[in-house]
């Protein structure tokens, strides 16, 4: 009786959840790259383009990698006085059929608490986590510190 009760509870919670967004399977991740780091004390960075090929908006809620304990999405903004700051984005929405670029100067993944140095020529696995709980894993190539992107 009791397991059945829990199942009912879970089902009712699911039914009460807000409209379901498209899942991460609809998202294509392109042009991912990172810069090499100096040791592990400074944070690292990752860039990519997230393209939503589905018909529903997709919400990115986080990142996961064994390279860094705290990967987080940051926005870069500059105020009227020319002061630039980073702000943590809890979630990033990708509209249906649209793409969101994480690129130098704008949105980016800040890799806090590096577990090992990021060495040019190597790569690492990064998982993008979506609101529905699905994840998409990619291999991110590490380019030189002075690189401006894969096409440079």
């Amino acid at each position: 009786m009791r397991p059945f009760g829990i199942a009912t509870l879970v089902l009712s919670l699911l039914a009460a959840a807000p409209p379901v967004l498209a899942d991460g399977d609809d998202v294509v991740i392109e042009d991912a790259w990172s810069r090499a780091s100096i040791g592990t004390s400074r944070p690292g960075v990752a860039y990519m383009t997230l393209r939503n090929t589905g018909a529903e908006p997709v919400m990115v809620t986080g990142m996961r990698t064994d390279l860094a304990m705290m990967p987080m999405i940051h926005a870069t903004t500059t105020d009227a006085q020319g002061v630039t700051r980073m702000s943590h984005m809890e979630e990033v929405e990708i509209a249906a059929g649209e793409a969101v670029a994480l690129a130098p100067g704008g949105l980016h993944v800040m890799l806090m608490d590096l577990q090992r140095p990021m060495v040019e020529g190597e790569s690492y696995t990064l998982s993008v986590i979506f609101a529905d709980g699905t994840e998409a894993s990619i291999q991110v190539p590490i380019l030189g510190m002075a690189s401006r992107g894969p096409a440079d």
Partner: protein
Amino acid sequence: MRRRALLRYGTLGLAAVAVTLFAGWWQVEGPGAPDIAMGDRRPLPLTNMDFTLTDHEGRPVGPETLIGRPSLVFFGFTWCPQVCPTTLADISHWLDGLGAEAGILNTVLITVDPERDTAQAMAEYVGYFHPQIRGWTGTPAQIARAAEGFRVRYEKVALDGGNYTMNHTAGVFLFDATGALVSIIDFHEPREFALPKIRRAMERSEPGTG
């Protein structure tokens, strides 16, 4: 005769007004205007600044170090993974684009994070970019004094886990060889705007033109 004199003085007077107006326009809105995207927060001329810092090789430096050659100066910190490497990578690319001409440019990164950016940390960091890029640091008071001259703002922001990051003015300042501000390359402006601005600072530095 009287009438002719009147006409002549009148014409001269109008011409003088026109020249004055044109000169004003030239300096304020025309090609002679410094293109500033920072409101009233424009750096002082280098000759009006007064600060002492230490470069990444341990040498004492100041605004006078930059006079005599066109200069490209920006503020940042080496713990930043985004703005500073992007700016340094762009600057390295511009210097490469200028080729041999770039040799006359002073190119300096001044840290806003002297706590972590020691001369040694700066040396390690700038070593990854164009060899012409110099890194300047100092005591917190020295950095504050330098930032005041450039009208640069910065603030420390705490992060989870006891770390911190810095918000700071991210534009690249261009000065001619006399130390006058020529323009500012905004962090967000398209990269192709930068090279003409740098060339302008270099042209203004040639003998006889500045």
